[in-house]
């Protein structure tokens, strides 16, 4: 029992040494990108909501453009300075404008953008309701037949019985 424990201990130590050496190897590879996993996590979170201005349909997180690289580095720097997400976004908006945000802020300038579709939908619903009501009233008006019409229909139906 004691011996097996001893053996486990040694494999444990060996594994630790191996992992540590692997760790340093990896750290050397990506020292610029992943110095601090917490910073990276926040970076990904923030940059997914930011637009790369060079390739405009890509987020800052996914773009490989040179400028996106620089901006990610800039965001990393701000994260390390303990800036909040809003502060970081404001920093970029001050330089590149609202366009840098994938999700534009709700403010008077963007009201049309945010609420326009709902307004159109409401207008459509109102329009349809009005149209339907109007159609219904004209249809009910047409339904009322005169006695003369009724007689005509009766004769037509009867004549239809005997071809």
């Amino acid at each position, binding site marked *: 029992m004691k011996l097996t424990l001893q053996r486990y201990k040694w494999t444990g130590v060996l594994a630790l040494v191996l992992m540590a050496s692997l760790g340093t190897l990896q750290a050397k590879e990506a020292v610029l990108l992943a110095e601090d996993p917490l910073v990276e996590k926040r970076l990904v979170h923030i940059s997914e909501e930011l637009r790369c*201005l*060079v390739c*405009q349909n890509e987020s800052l997180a996914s773009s490989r453009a*040179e*400028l996106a690289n*620089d*901006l990610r580095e*800039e965001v990393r720097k701000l994260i390390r300075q303990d800036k909040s997400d809003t502060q970081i976004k404001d920093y970029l*908006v*001050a*330089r*590149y*404008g*609202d*366009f840098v945000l994938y999700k534009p802020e709700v403010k008077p300038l963007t009201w049309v953008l945010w609420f326009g579709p709902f307004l159109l939908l409401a207008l459509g619903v109102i329009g349809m309701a009005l149209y339907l009501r109007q159609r219904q009233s004209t249809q009910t008006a047409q339904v009322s037949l005169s006695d003369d019409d009724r007689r005509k229909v009766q004769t037509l139906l009867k004549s239809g019985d005997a071809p």
Partner: protein
Amino acid sequence: MKKFLIPLAFFIGLLVFLAVGLNRNPQEIPSPLVGKPAPEFSLQTLDASAPPFGPQNMKGKVWMLNVWATWCVACREEHPVLVAFSKANQLPIVGLSYKEVQPQDEPSNRKFTPEEKLKLARERSESWLKRHGNPYVLSVMDLDGRVGIDYGVYGVPETYVIDKEGVIRYKRVGVVTPELLQTTILPLVQKLNAS
């Protein structure tokens, strides 16, 4: 007849939106910097013997800041226009050499030191300006693009007009054309100089 008029009006409205939308340049994004003070910086210039330059050196003057690089293809189209314009002496043009040394220019096994970068950038820029003409009163070297970020640079060339108080009055992303100079930039400069 009236029945068709409403959908037709809708359709024409849609067409107008489409026509306007398709004819706009998606690269032109209104800059939030227009009307704001030009961000401060202090950078080495192309001339190694000259002291560092910053926007505060131009206080009291209306001037133009033009972002350029020798690797920038569109700059080659713009450059003769600026050279011709500079000969008229209507507006001092300061160049901002943006990230002249690109990551792919560096040897694969190591990174350049800032001194090496500056030296290479100066050599390249100087020979390029010698070949194509130099419209700049001086050119600052933004090697890592840090100042570019402060100015919201996202596509070279970019051009700014800055007034006597150091406030950015105009920004152009893309090539400056002779028409743009005549119709927009020069009238603005005259107005700014008069005030």
